[in-house]
């Protein structure tokens, strides 16, 4: 999964899609995941990084990450050609 190239991410967690004018706010974890996607990291790499950063069980992180990725897909923040 890749983030659309022109998505603007602000350090405050403000996310702007200049292609359709949509904007969102994400928390620090969400922002870190979006930045990972923008850097081209794989879902596996993101999962491992989040597991390392947050002391929570693997199942919870996998489920939450899956939900988050599906959500940004539904919000048209990902490149559907990828």
């Amino acid at each position, binding site marked *: 999964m890749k983030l659309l190239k*022109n998505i*603007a991410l602000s350090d405050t967690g403000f996310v*702007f899609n*200049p*292609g*359709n*004018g949509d904007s969102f706010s994400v928390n620090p974890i969400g922002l870190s995941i979006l930045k990972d996607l923008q850097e081209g990291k794989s879902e596996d790499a993101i999962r491992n990084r989040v597991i390392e950063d947050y002391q929570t069980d693997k199942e919870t992180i996998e489920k939450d990450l899956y939900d988050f990725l599906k959500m940004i897909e539904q919000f048209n923040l990902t490149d*559907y050609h990828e």
Partner: protein
Amino acid sequence: MSKRKITIAVSGLNNIDSPGPGIPVIRALKDSELFEIRIIGLSYDTMEPGIYMHDLVDKTYQIPLPSAGQQSLITRLTYIHQQEKIDVLIPNFDAELFNFIKLQDTLKKMGIDTFLPALEQFEERQKWALNTFGEKYGIKVPKSKQINSTAEIHALTHEFGYPLVVKGKFYDATVAYSPDQAMAAFNKISSKWGLPIIIQQFTPGIEVNLTGIGDGKGNLIGAVPMRKTYITDKGKAWAGIALEDETLMNIARNMLKGNKWRGGFELEMIKTDKREYYLIEINPRFPAWVYLAVGAGQNHPEALVRLALGEDVKPYESYETGKMFIRYSYDKIVDLKEFEIISTLGEL
């Protein structure tokens, strides 16, 4: 660099909840780095707010309604020109454009420049001809047809299905979910704007619009795409945001290469979930949100004035995405005397 003094007549001073483009066009002109502009307002109704906005409009003259015909319009414009020595005239209403296009040569002889589409360009993008227009210029258009009687509504169930869009020939559009609603919309819109009524297939998706200006030689001088982020109950943008949309820009560029549009215009498109673009309307003038283009770095009304004066205008190459506009309402206090003067003398 000293600014050139110039007098520009502008219509569309109805800066109301469903605003005309006049006041935004004037604001854009007042922002010009090239011109020091005296604005002559052309109004149809004494309640058009622009008449009383003296910080933007220097003098206003009432002009006859488009239905009064070209002769009474040119008689009135001749009088106004004698008083004000107009350099450029920018009409901003769809309904008045036919008369101004027909009169543009006469106006030119009088010394008034305009920058309007040719009659053929104006006519071929009419709502009732949009399917043919789309085929000619390779733009997808929802299926549409014109009807002249409520008796034709029942047949629409099989031909279009519901919902469908009922549109007036100049303004207004309503989504109807049943024949009863289509009937009501037909009666409401036709009583205001006359016949025909245009029926258009409903296309689900998000509406994206583009304000632009063509030089009449096939070049897109400027264009800014926008999505409405807050819409009034009349379907008008109360807020919007400048988009980065290269597909929409290419649609505009290709259209202009084909039809060599002359003047300001607005494309109203639907972008579907599959990222396909359907043209639902072309307005033959700047939209009321044209000032967003100025905010994003492109002064389209200024470019139009330069083109009208016969100057060589280079296309804008960029604009700032993410610029937003948010309208607001404002209670202007007006002395009864001013209302009396415009009502009785037809000028203020």
